[in-house]
């Protein structure tokens, strides 16, 4: 039996501990927002946060997350309030087919949690492992920069976070 915290709730997993976390989350916990793209940690569609770090879960056995905290795209919006990145994604019309976007957003969210004022080069480095076959990269970058820019503004003018979210969605 493996225990971990999934989106704020303590959960137990008693199937094969070598099963990749992605399939445990999708098939056993029925959270389908994280996607399967390559099965080899090469495309980033399966990205979740493991203890806050963006992690490829299609090659990560469940045994490796015992006692850890897992966050998936389903937990990114809180109390009906979109994460600023999600608002920016909508405002910039980022998604095309949309299949990679959960992974993109989770990678971007981990980046901004670490580095709220991420530069263009920071974004290139952090997002390099997330493939988008539709080629939404310029918009992904613009959307992340718009939120990073807000965080500059927030620092400058001490705007509280709910206002930041409003601006992001405008």
């Amino acid at each position, binding site marked *: 039996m493996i225990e971990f915290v999934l989106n704020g709730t303590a959960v137990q997993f008693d199937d094969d501990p070598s099963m990749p976390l992605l399939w445990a989350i999708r098939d056993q916990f029925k959270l389908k927002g994280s996607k399967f793209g390559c099965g080899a940690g090469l495309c980033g569609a399966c990205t979740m946060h493991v203890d806050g770090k963006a992690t490829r879960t299609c090659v990560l056995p469940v045994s490796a997350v015992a006692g850890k905290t897992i966050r998936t795209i389903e937990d990114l919006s809180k109390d009906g309030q979109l994460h600023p990145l999600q608002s920016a994604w909508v405002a910039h*019309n980022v998604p095309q087919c949309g*299949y990679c*976007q959960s992974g993109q957003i989770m990678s971007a969210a981990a980046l901004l949690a670490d580095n709220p004022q991420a530069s263009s080069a920071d974004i290139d480095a952090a997002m390099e492992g997330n493939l988008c076959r539709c080629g*939404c990269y310029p918009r992904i970058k613009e959307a992340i920069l718009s939120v990073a820019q807000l965080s500059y503004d927030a620092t400058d003018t001490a705007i509280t976070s709910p206002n930041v979210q409003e601006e992001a969605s405008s």
Partner: protein
Amino acid sequence: MTGLNLSRRKFLKRGAVVGGGLIVGMQLPGCSFSGPLPIDSADDGFVPNAFLQITADNSVTFYCPSDEMGQGVRTGLATIIGEELDVHPAVMNVVSAGSHEDYNNPEFGFQLTGGSNAVRVFYLPLRQTGANTRALLLAAAAQDLGVPVEQLSTDNGEIVAGDARYPYGDFVATAATLAMPEQAPLKPASEFRYIGSEFSRVDALAKSTGSAQFGIDADIEGMVYAVVARAPVAGAKPLSVDDSKARSMLGVIDIVPISSGIAVVADSYWRGNNAVKALEIEWESLPLAQVDSKQVRADLSAAIQADKGTEAAAEGDLEAGFMGAIHQHESEYFAPFLAHAPLEPVNATLHIQGDRADLWTGVQSVQAAQGLVERITGLDRGNIRIHNLYLGGGFGRRGTLTHIVEVAEVAMAVKRPVQLLWSREDDLQHGLYRPASLMKIRAGVDGSGNITAWQAHRAGGNITGDTMSNLLPAMFPSMPSPILETLASSLGYVFANWSVDPSSVEGLHESYSLTNYQVAHTTVDHGLPLTFWRSVGHSYTGFAVESMMDELAEQAGIDPVAIRLKNTEGNPRMHEVIRRAGELMADMEVPEGHHLGFAAHSSFATDVAQIAEVSVEDNRIKVHKVTCVADVGTAVNPDIVRAQLEGGVMFALTAALHGEIDLKDGAVVQSNFHNYPILRMNEAPAVEVVLIDSGTAPTGVGEPGVPPLAPAVANGVYRATGQRLRSLPLRLA
């Protein structure tokens, strides 16, 4: 389908009659099949036609006839019908229509999403449908309110009568009793509220929160998972199978032979995929097993040199044209096999219950999916419901549905709901490919830059055959299955050996107004399955033609933009796109070491010119920026148009810098993204899109951004290095 009540029956009956008469287009003989619309009507749902349902609480649902694979078609078509219905697309519930003849693509004659045509061909029919429905609601409101219809107007889902406003839903009961107008007047473009304005895609929120449902997300209680071992060499059958080890593995439920290989049925995809690797299979040997990439190239080369090929298109007098030329030039260009690699590997979930079946998937032809399930299960087509979810990328790959055949065969064998999923390795090694192509172009130009003669010859496999045999069930739904099967197998052969498949040579001359030209073709088919790949023939002919234009310009001592302007005087729309792009390029200032390359190409009724800013450092090509000038006619949602052209640039840049499917002993070498790399963010150029509105109806946007990119980069690389790269992917010596 429970709780059918009289009022609903009345609504649906009227709807079916009206809906059937709305869409006119090419109908293939034997192509009509009827049956109930695949609409779950709300109890108070008014269904005036196949495309709309309006309920008393004023919820408006639009049944989108085309498949959403990222191109924005749900938003685009909702905008078109919403413009005349006067309902903002953002407040509509936009869903994927199932399979029904009322949703036939007017140009194809059946439901198929491809060829960048959905917005173009549905533009008038959906506007008319919206306008007729709005007129009907106005007539119903006039009757209910006792007000002359002339005193009523509409505003985003509401009837406006003086100061009073009433939701459309108030009048649907009366509307259902009235006759639908057939030709309600359409708005002039000057009155458009939604067409031409920019707002977020209707699927942007769902796709930013992980809640958008793709085929892979279908989850049916009690379903099992199927993973298939397929022959390394396409089409080979198993000679012997040792499945003893695989059968003993945890989670394996059954192992069944199917037409494409050996299917492992397990309690999870992961366990099934592990068990596939434990199968020991000896496959038959096919001629393709003797082929590797070098052989392909040599065969194409031999075919180009052997003779002039079969004429595909010609005009004027070629010999006289060459006689009149002052400069002549000849070059050969090569493009390799390519895979589509949509990020969601193909998959399907089938649940057969008694005499009915439900299929959850994401495909570019729901009717073909339905027909294939019918063929394999023997169920009545009307009892097979297709739930087409979002497609995690299409690019042409989801128009050929061998995975639907597979899921149906497995479901019939195991008698349980089945989800079948391809691994990434399956996707790259067992799919269908953009054909490798060799093109020779010989051209002559006179002293003032007129192309006096143009001779183009392409050798390679034909694109259409493998897909056409798969699409037959959609095109001929009323044809009995055994006849279809015979036809499918023989047609596949016929198409593969077709001397000139129009898709294979498209783009070799059409962008320019040429007086003396000839396009010829030699079919060289190695047996690797082929299909449409974003921009189809243009994906390689654009590279050849636009590289040649720069070579010819240099030969004649003419500016590359000037020679293109000179030879598009008979094509004003293309001419203007080139002129505008040329102006932009002339004003560009680039840093030292950066160089500009230019290319233009017309495809899917849209004209596009691109300027690539490139540099070469440490023998590596870097594309910094692409400026893309396009005339797409009326841009229904300009921001989505820009996004499609940006995406086209990225898709084409992946191919230009990295894309290559190699064969070794007839098997595809590439297996995952480590050796079939997709462009990453740090390689992505900035893209600036400039739209020219010539005022025409909308033309294609999904594909036309692809063809000019590779030659624009190659032309820039030539300026940077003096090396003329005539093979894709672009690799410096």
